[in-house]
């Protein structure tokens, strides 16, 4: 691929738009990815499954190259990659497909309380269909306890599902250790790596991973495409969720979207080459952000392990200011909050709660997600903006006033409403 130098200020930065710091929600499509995709919409629009003419052959070749690019970034064989519509579908296919295929032999699933909703909700549905599910807790750093995992796996356990990187707090689970335990105990190991691919080195063989979910739009590829890695040796069997023409080795019927497959492949190819350098740059930005905020703001806390985390995520609680109020104060930034008020449920983030973060602290958190197109100037702007907003809101906060007066907020009898 060409090492085009991209003018970062033009991506995700239309004049007047807030600075985009929500890279865990989604990433802009890399222009190099888009360039590769475009011809497959108009000139080479053939159906990759058409075997009778050149339009089909060209599309098939492009899709197969993309499959190899996806396989390469996780140390897999291209025959083990199934294209899907995204990580949500991949997670559904992996969990539901493996559970249903093995339902006459085994009926137990192990997962973790901090998983993405699409894993948790799929598990809930499987519970209603008669499976039993163990939801492992996490430690205060967001990581699972391996001894607890090992103890939870029984001879009835068909599959263990643990995410690679958490979307809210960025912590990295010990995949190699988890894989070794699953292999030893005879359970399949599925990992949702939507936030991990292209961010940390992954190797399905070294890590004993049987199933891995991948998403295009978290790695500078297009939205609407993802993949599921399905191990061939020893063969992992799944009941398909989408049936039809039998494409994708029968695991997932439907005509492949050539441009999207090409985009996902190119996104993986770029990430594979640039990951190490990119991680170093993000580490620098992350440190700059944290140091800059801490220099001016006391009583701020990073949620999740500081060491075992991707460099492009900082989830910070700003004690004594409320997250949604804070989001309003940082209008110049596109960030997300763990505060209840931003969700329909009025419950603060279940992920932060699972770490044992106090409800009141969970209400005060912001998630900063940065990535390939984030500049030092973006971070400096964010630092100034956040300091100003937090200081303004603390001036206005009765809790901050009590804190300064030495009152322990917890000693007060609050009337919960």
């Amino acid at each position, binding site marked *: 691929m060409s090492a085009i130098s991209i003018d970062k200020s033009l991506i995700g930065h239309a004049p007047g738009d807030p600075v985009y710091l929500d890279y865990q929600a989604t990433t802009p499509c890399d222009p190099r990815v888009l360039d590769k995709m475009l011809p497959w919409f108009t000139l080479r629009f053939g159906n990759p499954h058409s075997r009778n003419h050149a339009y089909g052959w060209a599309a098939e070749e492009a899709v197969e190259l993309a499959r190899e690019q996806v396989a390469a970034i996780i140390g897999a064989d291209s025959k083990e990659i199934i294209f899907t519509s995204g990580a949500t579908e991949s997670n559904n296919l992996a969990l539901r497909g493996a559970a249903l295929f093995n339902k006459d032999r085994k009926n137990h699933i192990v997962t973790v309380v901090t998983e993405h909703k699409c894993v948790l909700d799929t598990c809930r549905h499987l519970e209603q269909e008669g499976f039993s599910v163990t939801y492992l807790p996490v430690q205060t750093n967001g990581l699972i306890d391996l001894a607890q995992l090992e103890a939870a796996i029984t001879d009835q356990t068909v599959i263990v599902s643990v995410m690679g990187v958490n979307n809210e707090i960025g912590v990295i689970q010990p995949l190699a250790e988890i894989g070794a335990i699953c292999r030893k105990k005879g359970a399949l190991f599925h990992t949702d790596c939507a936030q991990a691919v292209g961010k940390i080195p992954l190797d399905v063989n070294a890590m004993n991973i049987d199933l891995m979910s991948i998403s295009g739009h978290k790695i500078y590829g297009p939205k609407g495409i993802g993949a599921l890695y399905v191990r061939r040796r020893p063969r992992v069997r799944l009941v398909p969720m989408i049936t039809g023409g039998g494409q994708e080795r029968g695991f997932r019927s439907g005509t492949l979207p050539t441009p999207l497959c090409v985009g996902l492949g190119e996104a993986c190819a770029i990430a594979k080459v640039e990951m190490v350098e990119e991680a170093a740059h993000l580490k620098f930005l992350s440190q700059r952000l944290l140091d800059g905020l801490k220099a001016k703001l006391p009583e701020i806390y990073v949620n999740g392990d500081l060491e075992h985390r991707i460099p492009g995520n900082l989830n910070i609680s700003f004690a*004594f*200011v*409320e*997250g*949604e*109020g804070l989001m*309003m*104060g940082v209008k110049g930034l596109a960030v997300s909050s763990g*505060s*209840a*008020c*931003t969700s*329909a449920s*009025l419950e*603060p983030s279940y992920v932060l709660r699972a770490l044992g973060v*106090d*409800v*009141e602290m969970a*209400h005060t958190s912001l998630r900063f997600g940065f990535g390939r197109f984030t500049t030092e100037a973006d971070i400096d702007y964010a630092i100034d903006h956040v300091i100003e907003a937090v200081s303004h809101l603390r*001036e*206005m*906060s*009765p*809790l*901050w*006033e009590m804190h300064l007066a030495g009152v322990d*907020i917890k000693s007060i009898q*609050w*009337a*919960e*409403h």
Partner: protein
Amino acid sequence: MAYSEKVLDHYEHPRNVGSLATDETDVGTGLVGAPACGDVMKLQIKVSAEGIIEDAKFKTFGCGSAIASSSLVTEWVKGKTLDEAAQIKNTDIAQELALPPVKIHCSVLAEDAIKAAIADYRKKHAHD
């Protein structure tokens, strides 16, 4: 979430932020809400010998709508008698700020805050 102009105005230019001396006999303090629920309001009134609210201050931990509701209430109570102030309804606050349904609880909390401040003042003067 899109906020109304008025909520934004109160959020950006909150009226009467601050504190009055809680111990003074002419000050009534209301502290309502809970940190665990994501909003806490402290509303204080200073009452003249004639029973008129001559000053009001607030501090709020909460979302923009909570801040705006308490800020608005401090404006409204000034110059009112205690009985008049006690008539302020959450529906009036919600309507003035054009709060969406999910934010109605912010206006309820502001009504509670003013009631609590009045009750605190009256308790101090129960034996007058």
